[in-house]
């Protein structure tokens, strides 16, 4: 072996030992999770701990005539029963929402949705607490309710929110009706209208992104423990954003923030459900403060599906104007947003409809106008981002369905129409009509790779053949080809436009190298299954040359972790991942000074190589990061303080814009409405790839949730406001049997402004997947004249569609 190849081998071995960025590092978390040694909230058990449970409203809209808790209090084992009357003197019967509204913690005079919290029973065990909820006597006087958001603003509609009925200006401007929350407008209305008036071709359809729920396998839960002697509250909870929860608890309880210890331990999935603050948290905290003992609250599944937030419920009237040959000239969208009884959307404060204005998608659309009207209805409040950045699934659904409709009208191929309108690689950074500056992208390359992978042309030929066979009566199976080319906007976000309750949406990392060269890093985010303990360590490993196995990542404890805004909206990698790279580089800069001192050379004479600084031109003269770490504590250079650590609060200069090309091939039996996904191909471009194994896992999971949403999952209400199917008996969560097999692929277009070029990936498959499935179904039925088929596409609805198309005559 010659000298050079030996150096290369040595180098490759050292790189491999780091387990840094780009490798399929096995997860650190799995050691405990596979042995049942995870530590989730319901595993927390404290001496003297009591259990809370809610009395909930059976009505969607009713006046509370009286609440009698005496029978419940008399039950042995019951310690306390809280009602709004108990919370009101403390000013806690309402709590602020993230959207600038207030939300009832316990209903005072009225209930506004079924299963709304009315009283909180605290007892010695969860069985007794549950028994006692049935002994609280509440007399209701039922009121007419609003279930259909299109009826919310009718002149004679019942007024839902009497607490704010005279307040005709809300958090986001004037309200047009007592049941109106906000109107949000963006874009060029006049310019858009002018283009539409003159356009060759226009389309207009309403796409309903129906109400559903993130439904992580672990429900929302907490344990509140007040130490009355020290005046300190410890709150364990299923919090995607523990630091924000601490700030909120401080603001509403009056306890100083430093005397509140919020701990988010292992979390059993979040998907947006665990961003907000819920009545259970407030009541547990109040219970513990009043009683001086720990109080645990654990939602059951029905409570989870019917009360702690929902997702979607956007009714999007979408219009495109185009030339005859398929160049899109303008887009106009009006959204009717059903926010339920309280506006508890989890969006950055200035964005009442999230980032819905990403709805121009991957296309170069010169002018656009978007209006969103939010309204109250008698349904659960929320509007969380279910595995997506804020309202991005909705936005992508609108544009990706709309281009399909336009293609159909023009008689153009849907892939060809997309390619024709793509933002071109040379147009980046691209200023979109509705305000965003897309950082980077190469859409044609991704689309070409995807079309070749699925043999798109051949699929269309096969489809044509099958359609002819269907017409001849030779088959009852139809074939749909679904396409989605999505662009996400994630990594909220720059402080100029993103804050939560006034706190800018930075995120943070604090890295400390110990004398022996191992590392602890603490983060402002909080994993709920994304594998942060594994992947953050990979970033540090590559940046600092310390093996990932020697790096411990900690999150979720507000006492020790730096303040961060948490994990949702695919922001961990774009924001905290950047913080960790920047903090690493601060350490590296100091390490270089120490290395120069150790080697008795000028700093500028050193170069970094894998895990060491070496003298330029003299590779045998080097100091490894491990040696440097020891020196930092043992004999730091004069005038340099000891130690080797850094903190970074990263302010992202822009969002990141992951994108992807998805194709779905579906076969549907028109007589049963059963749709089988024959093939699903997902190409994602999330920029620099930190751990391909974890990326693939994220894509699989996101696609499965997209499949669920598109093909069956729904939170429905009957006309009385009864929530239908709030259990896993009825709420569709696919098993291993129904779930399609996923094929994944990728291109890499690094983000130009992110320190390591990464963009985030956890939510892309969901965002891109939902329209892809829906487009497949719509495409399958298009030749039968089906028009716009709304989700969810479960067999019963597809059978009904077949019936309406006269397929069973």
């Amino acid at each position, binding site marked *: 072996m010659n000298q050079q190849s030996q150096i290369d081998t040595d180098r490759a071995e050292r790189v491999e030992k780091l387990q840094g960025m780009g490798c399929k590092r096995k997860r650190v978390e799995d050691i405990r999770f596979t042995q049942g040694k995870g530590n989730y909230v319901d595993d927390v058990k404290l001496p003297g701990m009591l259990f809370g449970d809610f009395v909930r409203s059976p009505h969607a809209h009713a006046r509370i005539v009286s609440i009698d808790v005496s029978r419940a209090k008399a039950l042995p084992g019951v310690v306390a029963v809280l009602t709004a009357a108990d919370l009101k003197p403390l000013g806690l019967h309402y709590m602020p929402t993230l959207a600038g509204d207030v939300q009832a913690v316990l209903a005072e005079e009225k209930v506004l949705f079924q299963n709304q919290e009315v009283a909180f029973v605290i007892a010695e065990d969860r069985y007794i607490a549950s028994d006692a909820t049935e002994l609280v006597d509440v007399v209701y006087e039922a009121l007419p309710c609003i279930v259909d958001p299109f009826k919310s603003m009718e002149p004679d509609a019942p007024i839902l929110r009497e607490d704010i009925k005279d307040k005709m200006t809300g958090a986001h401007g004037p309200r047009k009706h007592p049941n109106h929350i906000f109107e949000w407008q963006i874009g060029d209305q006049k310019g858009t209208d002018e283009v539409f008036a003159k356009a060759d071709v226009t389309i207009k359809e309403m796409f309903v992104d129906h109400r559903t729920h993130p439904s992580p396998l672990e429900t929302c839960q907490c344990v509140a423990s007040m130490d009355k002697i020290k005046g300190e509250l410890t709150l364990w909870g299923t919090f995607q954003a523990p630091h924000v929860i601490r700030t909120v608890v401080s603001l509403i309880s009056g306890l100083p923030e430093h005397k509140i210890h919020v701990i988010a331990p292992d979390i059993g999935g979040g998907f947006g459900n665990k961003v907000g603050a819920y009545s259970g948290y407030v009541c547990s905290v109040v219970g513990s403060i009043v009683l001086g003992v720990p109080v645990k609250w654990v939602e059951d599944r029905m409570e989870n599906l019917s009360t702690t937030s929902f997702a979607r419920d956007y009714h999007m009237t979408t219009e495109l104007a185009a030339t005859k040959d398929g160049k899109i000239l303008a887009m106009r969208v009006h959204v009717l947003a059903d926010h339920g009884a309280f506006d508890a959307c989890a969006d950055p404060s200035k964005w009442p409809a999230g980032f819905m204005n990403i709805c121009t998608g991957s296309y170069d659309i010169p002018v656009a106008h978007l209006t969103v009207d939010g309204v109250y209805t008698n349904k659960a409040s929320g509007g969380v981002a279910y595995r997506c950045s804020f309202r991005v699934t909705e936005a992508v659904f609108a544009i990706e369905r709309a281009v399909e409709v336009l293609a159909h009208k023009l008689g153009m191929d849907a892939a060809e129409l997309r390619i024709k309108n793509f933002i071109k690689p040379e147009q980046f950074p691209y200023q979109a009509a509705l305000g965003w500056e897309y950082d980077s992208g190469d859409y044609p390359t991704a689309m070409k790779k995807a079309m070749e992978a699925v043999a798109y042309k051949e699929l269309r030929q096969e489809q044509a053949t099958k359609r002819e066979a269907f017409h001849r009566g030779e088959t009852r199976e139809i074939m749909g080809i679904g396409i989605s080319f999505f662009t996400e906007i994630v990594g909220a976000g720059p402080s100029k436009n993103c804050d939560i309750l006034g706190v800018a949406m930075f995120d943070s990392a604090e890295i400390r190298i110990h004398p022996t060269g191992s590392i602890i890093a603490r983060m402002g985010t909080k994993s709920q299954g994304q594998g942060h303990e594994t992947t953050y360590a990979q970033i540090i490993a590559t940046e600092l040359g310390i093996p990932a196995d020697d790096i411990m990542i900690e999150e979720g404890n507000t006492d020790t972790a730096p303040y961060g805004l948490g994990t949702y909206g695919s922001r961990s990698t774009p924001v905290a991942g950047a913080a960790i790279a920047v903090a690493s580089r601060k350490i590296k800069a100091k390490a270089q000074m120490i290395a120069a001192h150790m080697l008795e050379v000028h700093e500028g004479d050193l170069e970094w190589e894998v895990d060491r600084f070496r003298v330029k031109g003299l590779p045998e003269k080097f100091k490894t990061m491990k040696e440097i770490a020891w020196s930092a504590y043992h004999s730091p250079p004069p005038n340099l303080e000891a130690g080797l650590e850094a903190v970074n609060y990263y302010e992202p200069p822009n969002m990141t814009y992951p994108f992807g090309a998805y194709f779905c091939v579906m076969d549907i039996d028109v007589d049963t409405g059963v749709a089988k996904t024959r093939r699903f191909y997902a190409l994602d471009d999330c920029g620099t790839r930190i751990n391909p194994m974890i990326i693939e896992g994220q894509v699989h999971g996101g696609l499965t949730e997209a499949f669920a949403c598109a093909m069956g999952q729904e939170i429905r209400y009957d006309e009385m406001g009864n929530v239908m199917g709030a259990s896993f008996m009825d709420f569709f969560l696919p*098993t291993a*049997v129904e779930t399609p097999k996923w094929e994944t692929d990728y291109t890499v277009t690094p983000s130009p402004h992110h320190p390591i070029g990464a963009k985030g990936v956890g939510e892309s498959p969901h965002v891109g997947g939902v329209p892809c499935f829906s487009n497949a179904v719509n495409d399958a039925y298009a030749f039968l004249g089906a028009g716009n088929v709304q989700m969810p596409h479960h067999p019963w609805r597809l059978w009904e569609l077949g019936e309406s198309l006269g397929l069973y005559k």
Partner: protein
Amino acid sequence: MPKKQITLTVNGKTIEALVEPRTLLIHFIREHLNLTGAHIGCDTGHCGACTVDMDDMSVKSCMTFAIQADGTNITTIEGVANPDGTLSALQEGFRMMHGLQCGYCTPGMILRAQRLLQENPIPTEEEIRYGIAGNLCRCTGYVNIVKAIQYAAAKINGTSFPEAAE
């Protein structure tokens, strides 16, 4: 409520306890025995996060009263690792093939898979998918769970599983 005496074996240890007749097995295991690996996900028997092995059958412990476990032999996730403390073939398979993310369904999933491989040591992919249909996972999309079980089956049977090398 009057309590009833039960005697059962959990992970090889004999347990005697007094329980209320209405106490669910999952609460007994988690709160009386402090074995918190099995989880509660749905309360209706659909999700399988609470799956344990009872007398050589997969049982959803949220659908079973503790008194029904009287006289039985139960294995929970805490009793799955090899006697020397190393990960069992299935535990290793789940880690190697990235068959878990949040970890909440994993204990139930592994217990179910362990029983499946007892019932059918060389399952096809379809048999695995049907075999774990009583256990929901919200994170993985199942592809890698299936591979994890294939990995374990191959390891137990001494056959090869090429994807394990990736």
